[in-house]
């Protein structure tokens, strides 16, 4: 039953993503859809975040280091009823709280302003460090893109997190294999990302980023690992659950037209998959 609920929530998050990007005729659907199951699990089963404590920072926190997937973050906050779906038409429009890349001061529940790749993971390191200073049990989660791992700062952050033994930090790499200009191994091969993180001193866990049992196993292993941070390498599909977007890097930062929007919604309404 729990798994059915998570699937339904994830489908709703995906619908929010498509609604936002379609309304704005702008935004990043591909990498938002690929991370939807992981983020749904985080917000519904892993993190201690809810409408009541959303504006506090005395709770688990999530940094969307791949800030261009903002529809994913806004979509999950809507599904958690922390922000209203009434905001959907304002996404990327003037005077909106829903900036193209997230602003922590505009949106309740957004834990860090991100968008410049590589910086979010460092911010998450800072939050985890603060929790250590305060002896706080709260945990910090970050989601990175696989293409984002081409940024040198990711590895500076990886070095620092291991150096300070931040076992309260868990980074997820949304490994969908594609970036704006194409296959990550063609553009600038960042692989093997898992071995690199391991070499930097991290605990590394592999999961299927669309299988909730496997996602649960990954976060359980991260929580149980002491003395070092955990990186979860999540194998995902860019554009997941919208058949014509799946595995096509062309959908990294392009909005669907009306016909494509209807087709996308049919995909999501049809299978609940």
């Amino acid at each position, binding site marked *: 039953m729990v798994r059915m609920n998570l699937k339904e929530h994830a489908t709703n998050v995906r619908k929010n993503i498509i609604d936002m990007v379609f309304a704005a005729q702008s935004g990043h659907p591909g990498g938002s859809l690929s991370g939807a199951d992981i983020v749904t699990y985080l917000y519904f089963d892993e993190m201690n975040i809810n409408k009541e404590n959303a504006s506090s*920072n005395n709770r688990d926190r999530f*940094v969307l280091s791949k800030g261009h997937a903002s529809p994913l973050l806004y979509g999950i906050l809507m599904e958690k009823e922390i922000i209203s779906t009434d905001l959907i038409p304002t996404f990327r429009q003037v005077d909106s709280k829903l900036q193209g890349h997230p*602003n*922590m*001061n505009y949106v309740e529940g957004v*834990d*860090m*302003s991100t*968008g*410049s790749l*590589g*910086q*979010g993971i*460092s*911010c*998450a*390191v*800072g*939050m*985890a*460090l*603060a*929790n250590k*200073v*305060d002896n706080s049990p709260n945990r910090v989660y970050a989601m990175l893109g696989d293409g984002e791992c081409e940024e*040198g*700062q990711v590895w*500076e*952050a990886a*070095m*620092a997190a291991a*150096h*300070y033994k931040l076992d309260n930090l868990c980074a997820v790499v949304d490994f969908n294999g594609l970036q704006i200009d194409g296959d990550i191994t063609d553009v600038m091969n960042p692989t093997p990302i898992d071995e690199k993180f391991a070499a930097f001193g991290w605990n590394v866990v592999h999961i299927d980023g669309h299988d909730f049992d496997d996602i649960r196993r990954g976060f359980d292993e991260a929580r149980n690992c002491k003395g070092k941070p955990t990186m979860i390498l999540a194998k995902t599909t860019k554009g997941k659950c919208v058949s014509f977007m799946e595995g096509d890097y062309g959908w990294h930062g392009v909005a669907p037209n009306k016909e494509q929007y209807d087709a996308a919604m049919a995909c999501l309404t049809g299978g609940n998959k």
Partner: protein
Amino acid sequence: MAKVATREAYGKTLAKLVVEKDNVIVLDADLTKSTKTIEAKNARPEHHFNMGIAEGNMMSVAAGLAASNKVVYASSFAMFAAGRAFEQIRNSICYPKLNVKVCATHAGLTVGEDGASHQSVEDIALMRAIPNMKVFQPCDDIETAAIINAVYDIDGPCYVRLGRSGVERVNKEDYTFELGKGVILNKGEKVAIVATGMMVQEALGAKDLFKGNPTIVNMPTIKPIDTDLLIDLAKTHDVIVTVEEHSIIGGLGGAVVEALAEHNLCPIIRMGVNDTFGESGKPADLLKKYRLDSQAIANKVNTYL
């Protein structure tokens, strides 16, 4: 009295602050002995983190700490703090208006022997251009202590520009720092010299070389600049001369020109580094060569007295 570098006063002040305030965290990038944050580390080691030679990461980590209710003092050389980590300061710290105080030492030509790669003469311009950022440059140890304590109470990001070389004390023990206010050190006539950092001492040191009695102003807050005082100076003097150990593009001179541009009151002469890189040398020799010592200031000012 022995000369004291502003970075030394920073270290001493921070060592007290980190003990007094439980939410102060200090970050450094492998330069603790040079930036003097080692004093804070010795005072409260569990609140000091060495982030290694990775300034970009350090600034974003500072942002994460600040997003967790900490007031973060993050230090490196001005070149690598404002220069290398510019975009992290802009996007991780200033855009979300987080409580990070970037305290950058070894600013300007007087880094000396290390030469151009380490002589930041663009940092004021870079930091001043970022929304939400406030920019300060103390001239002596007294003012440094006052500013380091003052920025703790400012809600949001601050950039404090500090020097490597020892400087004479200008201010008295009872000096109180006022945010955004210039300080008139000598009230004179015809020429108003507006200086910042150790150029204040160079201007004061030219006293016997002046052919008259120019006004001398210390400008410790470069952003927000004291527009009211500048307008007053412009109305009561023939010319304003700005002096800074920074490029004439975008620094104190730039700020003064911008503040007065629409008022059309008096000519403004900018003394600084003339759109060029520095070089190795003893600080005094460099100030002489780049015409930023007392003699050069007197030569320039005397043409208007």
